[in-house]
């Protein structure tokens, strides 16, 4: 027989009357409270503090209580006068568009190949995934050598083919594109695995039925694979976009934003502004602008992909 329960309030579920059960419920709240408190202290707290700092001028050295109030000046400066921020924003968008587009297309393409009955399928899967588990800084250093203008192996191949030598990471028009290429190499293996899991979750029955109806490979892909992969696609596009808009380590370790800010990204500029120039207020404002942009893009992506999948 279950214990009678009392209704406490709108935010608390029914609490059993039994003393033993009530004590158990109390402990449940204690255990739930611990991570919530940790979340408030280590996540919500810093976010709120960062928002407060973004309205001030703070060098991180002076006491917090002495921060001069600046209102929205940091935001206005970034959006109207900070040419490096505007440049970094443009670069970050390009990086995200190039990286997300290529990772999605290549990830899906390679996943389709690896899902078919090709020889050495397991070996290929391991090879594609290896860059994902390689330390990003190690990859960055390796590619700095590979793409070196004078001694890099890529230029050796290019010139052996009779083509002109390219500056790659040291060229203002090529540095960002080269970084996008490195990022694709680094992360495409991860998205292959995600797409592969999605592909293997599609029941074979659908393909069998389609074949009975006379559907070809393209029709199977267009009308079965793609629609059923939309949830996976949504995950890939959203997580990849968020990651790409926050890119830091790769740029920091290869070009440092050079030459002449041609490969500067928002988070690297944020880091420089905070720790090199001691402008934590302005850097915090950058973080909030980037957060707003990411939020907006994510909502748009979710709406676009989710709604269509529901219709299907």
């Amino acid at each position, binding site marked *: 027989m279950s214990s009678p329960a009392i209704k406490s309030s709108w935010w608390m579920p029914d609490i059993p009357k039994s003393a033993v059960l009530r004590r158990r419920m109390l402990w449940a709240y204690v255990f739930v409270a611990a991570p919530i408190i940790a979340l408030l202290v280590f996540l919500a707290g810093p976010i709120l503090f960062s928002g407060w700092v973004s309205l001030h001028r703070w060098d991180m*050295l002076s006491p917090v209580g002495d921060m001069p109030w600046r209102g929205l000046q940091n935001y206005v400066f970034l959006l109207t006068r900070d040419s*490096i921020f505007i440049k970094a924003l443009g670069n970050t968008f390009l990086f995200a568009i190039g990286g997300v587009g290529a990772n999605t297309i290549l990830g899906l393409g390679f996943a389709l190949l690896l899902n078919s009955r090709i020889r050495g399928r397991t070996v290929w899967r391991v090879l594609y995934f290896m860059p994902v588990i390689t330390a990003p800084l190690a990859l960055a250093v390796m590619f700095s050598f590979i793409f070196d203008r004078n001694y890099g192996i890529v230029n050796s191949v290019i010139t052996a083919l009779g083509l002109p030598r390219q500056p790659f990471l*040291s060229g*203002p028009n090529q540095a960002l594109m080269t970084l996008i290429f490195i990022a694709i190499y680094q992360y495409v293996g991860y998205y292959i695995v995600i797409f592969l899991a999605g592909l293997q979750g599609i029941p074979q029955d659908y393909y069998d039925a389609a074949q009975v109806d006379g559907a070809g490979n393209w029709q199977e892909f267009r009308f079965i694979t793609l629609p059923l992969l939309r949830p996976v696609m949504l995950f890939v596009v959203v997580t990849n976009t968020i990651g790409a808009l926050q890119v830091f380590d790769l740029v920091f370790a290869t070009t440092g934003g*050079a*030459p*002449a800010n*041609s490969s500067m990204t928002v988070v690297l500029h944020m880091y420089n502004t905070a*720790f*090199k120039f001691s402008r934590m207020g302005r850097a915090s404002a950058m973080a909030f602008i980037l957060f707003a942009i990411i939020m907006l893009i994510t909502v748009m992506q979710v709406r676009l992909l989710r709604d269509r999948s529901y219709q299907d």
Partner: protein
Amino acid sequence: MSFNRSILVLLSLALILIFGAATLAQDTTLTMLTHWGTEDQLAAQQAIIDAYMESNPGVNIELVTVDFGELRTKIITGRTAGISADVYHFYHLWLPDFVNAGVLDQPPEDALAYINENVAQGTIDAVSTSDGQTWGYPTEVNPYLLVYNKRLLAEAGYDTPPANWNELKEIAAAITQVDDTGAISQVGLGVMPGWDSGIVHPFSALLFSNGGNYLSADRTVAEFNSAQGIETLQLYADLVASGGTDPSINGLGNFPSGTVGMVIMAPWWRATLRAAEGVDFETEVRVAEIPVGPSGDAPSSIAYTWLFAVDSSSPNKEAAWDFIHWMNAEHDEGAGSAIGDFLVNALGAIPSFDHDQAAFAESMSDHYVSAFVAASAYARPEQIVAGGQEIKTLLQVEIEAVLAGMTTPEDALASVEQQANAILEEQRMMAEE
């Protein structure tokens, strides 16, 4: 009481006694933060620390080193996190920012008297704020000069280093070698993109040798956007156009491998050059004055300084200043100080204190350091100002833009001047608030 419980109590008491005794024996712990991090440099610093601890029982000193690129960040984040070091060794350009934020403790009177008595006024000024307050013990003095590879110059047909900019351009272009595929195997003048000091200090040395200024004398306005400044940046553009330099060949990394003819650099590089495999330090590495520009009348240069200072939040300020003084003071006449010995023999830098310059004169008399010692007499100290690091980085980026052919010298300097003056104005307003 059970047997197990008795053992537990005894063990706890033993631990309390051991750690209690250790705490009593070393009742003062100081942390020193420096950027000298190679194996040899760490060993030399630890030897100094060990010697001090031996003669000062009860004081424990912990050495923390980080790469120069992370030093400022380490100081800032340490302060914010409440785990700042007691003793800092830092670049003097950051001094105004640190002073304005109350990071530093004012040196005691006897320390100031010792510094005033034993250091040249120009060097004292370099570690003092505009109000005349000195904030620490100056250490290395680093003027910039033209370091060149005598063999590469000779192979290009030149026996003497360039004395003016026309000669610099001519020799640099003659040294550069490009193969059929366009690969640069050897470059005349090496630049150091990606490193603010490696770009801005050589630019400043050339600017001063062309009769220009960095900031106004009262440090309130940027003055590098002048006819002399534009000529200096045009020199870079000309060097790129003639092939005399190329930003894809980094002078810092490639001069020691023997593929760069000339580079504008500081004396602390001696240890690297001595260990280099691509260039023979004794027979090939030579140093010359900065070539004079068309608007200049004599070679000039820039010199920067570092200093030891104490964190204002340190609970052991007195002990920290005592340790710094001990490192910099001459204990036996004619023997020099511990830091002086380290700076000269481990780094190849020029020490600030007169007694070190006298004691280690012989070590500084080699063909490399002696040229820098001579230059320290006329090199202009780097002008320090709040926000100076930001201005320097902005200038670095624009110089790199000129090197990459992305902008003209006129546009580059006009852009930085505007931003630099805004920063200086902002700092002035902050000081008045």
